[in-house]
């Protein structure tokens, strides 16, 4: 069975809480945006409110790297972040040019961090399976 370091447990707890806040906050904001005429000032507040929990997720990654005392897990995380960052930036660049030349539709910028998180997850899964699901 996989055991988690204290820093990993704290990070997971933070992420779960932040995702819960995000899931609670987002539907009313989307509803307000769709059904009410919102002024620019309140739109700004709504956008910041929607973004804050997700900004917290990235802050949590930073906190995790700072808190992690197990150098092996820290190195694995750093490697995963480096791979996800390179792959995401590469995807963003290619997509940007495809979009500029009309080959791809416009995609909201907030999908970029989503892709980053997904690639990290995929890499973590591949690493786990490549170790025979033992660690």
């Amino acid at each position, binding site marked *: 069975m996989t*055991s988690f*370091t204290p820093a990993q447990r704290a990070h997971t707890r933070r992420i779960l809480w932040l995702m819960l806040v995000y899931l609670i906050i987002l539907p009313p904001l989307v509803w307000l945006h769709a059904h009410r005429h919102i002024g620019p000032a309140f739109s700004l507040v709504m956008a910041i409110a929607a973004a804050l929990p997700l900004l917290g997720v990235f802050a949590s990654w930073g906190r995790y790297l700072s808190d992690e*005392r*197990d*150098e*092996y*897990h820290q*190195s694995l995380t750093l490697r995963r972040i480096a791979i996800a960052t390179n792959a995401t930036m590469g995807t963003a660049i290619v997509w940007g040019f495809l979009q500029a030349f009309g080959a791809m539709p416009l995609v909201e910028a907030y999908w970029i961090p989503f892709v980053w998180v997904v690639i990290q997850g995929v890499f973590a899964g591949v690493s786990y399976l490549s170790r025979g699901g*033992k*660690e």
Partner: protein
Amino acid sequence: MQNRLRVLRAERSWSQQDLADKLEVSRQSVNAIETGKYDPSLPLAFRIAELFALPIEEIFVSPSHRSSKAI
């Protein structure tokens, strides 16, 4: 990097978890070091050496030393 960690641990009848607890690292770290998938930092290598009361070079095999032997 090759090392004698598994042998030294076995000599003392310690499990990977026992060694991990003594070194204050995760069991996964001990496993990764034993299998050569991860090279510990110098501070951790020193902690390992102090725990087994051995010089570092008697636990970890220098890659250059190994290659020169192979030549």
